[in-house]
């Protein structure tokens, strides 16, 4: 390959600063979107299992609609599609106050909420039906049964697939660059623009994503061990 590597482009000039800014934006975007995704996921995941049909339908509609359209389309939808429906004054305010970031966050959060929902539903389905019935028999309402019995157990069960889904969310945050959010991938392209050294810039981006994701999986593995209910989840020693 006829290419002269020049790794110093990554620490000379403004590259370091850009990568840091990009990293911060990626983390902010992903963190807020993650909270949104988890809330929507728990809500719709739980609703899909309740013994009341209209609520199940509404939740199923949300999940199928949002997870079956590509994320890129959702980015454009929230940025280009929803904005014109707002009142003119609100639009102008948003245009000057980070519309790109918020459209990207909502797109990511709502999309991954639908995927998270399936993870949570599978966790709930893994709990024997009798536990729910026993909760009701003890005098709990449906809401209390979910809040106090079903969800606490389900959330422990879904830590591994939930982690995968969260890592996907983090990596998918890069799609927000299509609507001009200056996140990590955007910044690696920026370095390419300034230095014409694409391979070095993309390698730096790749390594940062890798380190981020590995750290998150390590933390989540500890969380899993910490919250595991003895006897309920049989599993090989993690590590």
């Amino acid at each position, binding site marked *: *390959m*006829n*290419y002269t590597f020049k790794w110093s482009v990554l620490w000379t000039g403004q590259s370091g600063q850009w990568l840091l800014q990009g990293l911060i934006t990626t983390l902010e975007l992903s963190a807020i979107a993650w909270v949104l995704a988890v809330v929507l996921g728990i809500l719709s995941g739980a609703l899909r299992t309740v013994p009341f049909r209209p609520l199940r339908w509404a939740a199923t509609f949300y999940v199928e609609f949002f997870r079956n359209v590509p994320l890129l389309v959702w980015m454009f939808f929230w940025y*280009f599609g929803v*904005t014109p429906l707002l009142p003119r004054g609100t639009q102008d305010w948003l*245009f000057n106050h980070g519309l790109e970031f918020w459209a990207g966050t909502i797109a990511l959060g709502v999309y991954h909420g639908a995927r998270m929902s399936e993870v949570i539903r599978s966790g709930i389905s893994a709990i024997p039906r009798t536990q729910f019935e026993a909760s009701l028999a003890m005098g709990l309402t449906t809401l209390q049964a979910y809040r106090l019995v079903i969800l606490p157990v389900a959330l422990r069960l879904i830590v591994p697939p939930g982690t995968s889904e969260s890592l996907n969310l983090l990596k998918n945050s890069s799609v927000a660059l299509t609507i001009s959010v200056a996140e990590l991938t955007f910044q690696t392209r920026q370095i390419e*623009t300034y230095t014409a050294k*694409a391979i070095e810039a993309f390698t730096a981006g790749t390594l940062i994503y890798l380190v981020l994701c590995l750290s998150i999986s*390590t933390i989540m593995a500890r969380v899993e061990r910490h919250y595991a209910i003895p006897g309920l989840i049989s599993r090989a020693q993690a590590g």
Partner: protein
Amino acid sequence: MKRTFALVLVLAVALMATPALAQDTLEKIKSSGTLVIGTRTGSPPFAYVNRDNQWVGFTIDLVEMLVKPEIEKAVGKPIKVEKKESTPPTRIPLLSSNAVDLIAGTMTDTPQRRESVDFSLTFFYTGAQFMVKKGSPIKGVNDIAGKRIASQQGSTNAKILREKYPQAQLREFPDQPAAFQALLQGQVDAYTNDGIQLYGLKAKAPKPDEWDVVGDFYSEEPYGMAMRKGDAKFKAVVDAGLKNGFESGKYFEIYEKWFGPKGELPYPITPQVKAYLLKQIGK
């Protein structure tokens, strides 16, 4: 964890140890019988897919009619031209990895890029301007303080605005359609790109009369064809092709075809630009 780390290490070493083997492009073309060019699909009239689904354009014609015959002469046999899509972030890696032999699109010749690739003679000269809605208060680069300006990511214009006009709020989009959509809906107040590309966009817009291309050039954008660095023989052949085109007038015929009054995008060549192009061959 240890294993993952080892894997990363292997990847990193593999990336760094890729042999810096300079291949002779003419030899490669001779053995394969094909010149592979990296070009654009959505930059009319330089390189784009037209209504009849053909991949055509001014730059592609320059390759087909000026560069290709010269290469055929050099390798002593007829060759084919194969087109691949290249975008600003991918074009230099495509070239370095031998996936393409020549970048012929709308690539501006810059000093930074010259550290990684070689450029041919300049075959088009333009500069950055702004596209705005008719009646906009923005008339040029001096009116953009505090305004939201869209640009194409990876372009030289975005770089200049960031450095010299930090008061503008820059919004960078990966491609032209998204940036134009943002202008259309008011997310941004203006869209900046090379003047010629803005004219191309305006001509294709649903209501061309609603848009104005304004401002003096605030950057210089000489377009060149890019090649792997250090392949002097190949560069000499490409340059000879373009030079013959300038000398014989064939270049200006092709220019007329695309930018003349009946062309895809009427954009008369100015005397300054013509002088600039001819100065390269000592005229």
